[in-house]
């Protein structure tokens, strides 16, 4: 197995250079005072203190986590049945559906979000449709509904792909065996299919939750700017107030919190998976 192990060394070297070293620069910024003189570092914890002691920032972080969590939950709830249905399709239909779902993500996210802005306006397509039934106009743009919709639209393809991957090529003999042993459809699903697809769900959650926490274009455009999320705060620290030190500190705090929650999720996954094997 030694040959396999050594296959990882190039990548470990690569990430050490391309991810770890640049990240260390961010860590350095987070722990130093701002100043024009680049050569003298004065270490400080002020940047962290500023964040932790200001309840506005904490509220912003909390709100970001909540929105990301809601988005993730909806993506799982909607994405699972969609992936399941697609996985049941015969060979070619299966591939084509997956391509059809991925294709919209190749249109620029900003352009897609602008389209949603038009669709969700009071005079937009959706309200036009509702008015046919004598409803509305229902205010949709600049509401939490719009923000969540935009986030789900943007991220759910990743969830579907991941779940689909784990359902696809699943050993059909297992399902037949379960049926032979007298399990009905629901039981087979709960006891066999679901546990086997769990790794896919977990990796889908990673792919949705992590970027959702720090996303800011969608809340900004569809939420009308009232949805200040941690992504907006970090971005404005770097790009408008030019406070790299504070921006770095916030992103470190966020990273630690998310890493912890991901660690717990993966731990849960491992224990569920091992329980399933027993």
């Amino acid at each position, binding site marked *: 197995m030694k040959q396999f192990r050594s296959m990882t060394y190039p990548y470990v070297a690569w990430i050490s250079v391309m991810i770890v070293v640049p990240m260390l620069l961010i860590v350095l910024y987070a722990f130093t005072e701002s100043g024009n003189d680049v050569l003298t570092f004065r270490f400080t914890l002020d940047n962290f203190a500023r964040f932790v002691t200001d309840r506005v920032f904490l509220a912003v972080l909390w709100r970001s986590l909540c929105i990301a969590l809601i988005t993730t939950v909806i993506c799982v709830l909607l994405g699972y049945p969609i992936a399941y249905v697609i996985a049941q399709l015969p060979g070619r239909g299966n591939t084509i559906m997956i391509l059809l*779902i991925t294709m919209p993500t*190749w249109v*620029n996210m900003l352009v897609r979000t602008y389209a949603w802005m038009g669709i969700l306006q009071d005079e937009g*397509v959706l309200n036009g449709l509702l008015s046919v039934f004598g409803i509305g106009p229902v205010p949709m743009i600049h509401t939490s509904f719009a923000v969540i919709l935009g986030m789900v639209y943007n991220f759910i393809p990743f969830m579907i792909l991941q779940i689909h991957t784990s359902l696809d090529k699943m050993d059909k003999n297992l399902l037949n065996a379960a049926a032979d042993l007298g399990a009905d459809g629901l039981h087979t699903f709960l006891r066999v299919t679901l546990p086997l697809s769990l*790794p896919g769900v*977990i990796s889908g959650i990673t792919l949705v939750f992590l970027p959702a926490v*720090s996303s800011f274009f969608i809340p900004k455009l569809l939420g009308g700017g009232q949805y200040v999320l941690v992504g907006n705060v970090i971005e404005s620290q*770097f790009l*408008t107030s030019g406070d790299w030190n504070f921006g770095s500190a916030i992103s470190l705090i966020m990273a630690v919190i998310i890493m912890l929650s991901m660690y717990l999720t993966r731990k849960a996954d491992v224990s569920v998976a091992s329980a399933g094997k027993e």
Partner: protein
Amino acid sequence: MNEAKRSGVGSKIILILTLAFFYLPILYIVIFSFNDSRSLTKFGGFSLRWYEKMFADSTMMEAVGYTVAIALLATVISTIVGTVTAIGLTKSRRILTAFVERVNDLPVMNPDIVTAISLLMFFSVLAVRKGFLTMLLAHIMFCVPYVMLSVTPKLRSLDPNLIEAAMDLGATPMQALTRVIVPQIRPGIVSGALIAFTMSFDDFVISYFATGNGVNNISILVYTMSKRVNPSINALSTIVILLITLALGIVNLVPILREKSGAPSGAERGVLKRRRLVLASVAGILTLAIVVGVASGSGSVRRRQQAAIEKYGSAVLKLYLPGEYLGENVISNFEKEFGVSVIVENFDSNEMMYTKLQAGDAYDVLVPSDYMIERLIAGNYLQPIDHSLVPNLNNLADAVVGLDYDVDGKWSVPYFWGSVGLVYNHENVDPAVIKEKGWDILHDTDYAGRVYVYDSERDSFMMAFKALGYSMNTDDPAQIEAAYEWLRQMNNTMSPIYVTDEVIDSMINGYQDIAVVYSGDATVILDENEDMSFLMPDEGTNIWCDAMVIPKNAENPKLAHEFINYMLTYEAAFDNSETVGYASPNAEVLEEMSTQEDLYAENEAYLPRSGYERDEMFHDNVTLQRELSKYWIRVKAES
């Protein structure tokens, strides 16, 4: 049986709804790419003008080439690397696996801007020349984790004894890998590749800071174009959709044809195999062509530029200015007249530009705003303008001569100037009332829920300071506190919508009644929607000026002077001002634009006030800006 049928119908409904959800916005984009009016959300008749504009714009076609080339390369490389590494990790020690997993999470989790800045600093420490290669490296960096996240779950559900069994049966490790493992995890590899391609194709922020020297991707163009709601972005997206559909269609059609032709004989299979080979090589050649084409295109231009090289030392000018800030033919005319080529790069904010300068990126001409010029002078970033090389300085309008940030014009030459004011719908808002109230109209609850406020601490605090009768450059804590209260009250009683560039489109469509807008954007809005009027409040406002400067590290300062001089000519200044809608620094153009009826005489947004004592310019004050930024987040987030 019945149940199976019912579930079949259920699946169909789910699939149809899913596709409707995914393709509603896409359909919207395609329809609006044929829109005659300059709006992303309101249809004004069928037209192909945005397609014409797009195909005429060589930078757009070039960007498509770069985007596809980088996305393909990044996808292929990161899929191979990610798959191999993920397989290796299953046999590695726990601690190594944990290390790689944690580090992989970083680019997925960090806001793009953090990854971007970290890479910017990293590349700047290494002093590499930024362009295609640095952008490709960055894309591979953030794509591999997505591939690994897709492959790993599939590997984990693999029976660990499979490989041992294969090797017991005499397979070499390589054979076990390619014949046993890879086929088993293929769905994971495919979805990993798809996600990697998406991420690379759609990335803006990281690409922006990792690239340079005129190498742009579609996203970078889209973001700069969205500054002025340029519907060409819809046309561009439609073309991209079309290209992708075609490519996928061809790839998928071949196997279907094979199935249709029944069980193929050996000879036929050979033909099909060959066909596949042909397809693959066509795709390969296409990629190569794009890369080579882009490279050789600049080569042939280079030959024509001998004369310019002798005169200026180099025939390339690197220009860095805000997005959508140039007349339609200004650059191509300059290139023709002087036999040079201009690389144009755009920024979204002065701070974005400053960030790139700090990292050591070199440009020949920049167009920052007044306060940023103060910062650049203080930070010793600029070289003085040699006035003898810019005879057209005589063309400057009085209003832009001797401005505070650079009183004797030693460092800068004005490019555009303007104001900040209120655009309002005079059908719904009484002009007399808004004139009397000025900025305080933003406290008038009659208009609650119908206002757009510009999402920027500087402009918002400017309004508050002016409404309260203070200087907008004040750093008196009591006055800042009062302005904060003013904004908080606005936020809590008016439920304003905070916007940036999308305000242009929204006001053209008349979605709301009042908006805080820059004068040049207001010019465009008033041009497109005749119900709209513009007001510069009596309480005073921000009069600003963007000006051309030459950085110390400019590679071609002689040509930079030539360019600055050219921009002050009547022709260039006219084209600029007519296209963009901001006030010209050229006296003759300014006079014509603001007095001729077919130009901007009847557009009250065009001409800024000058000499009004309550108007001010911003001065650079980094500590104050940070303080205001903190307060501004509080205003928006506390409600």
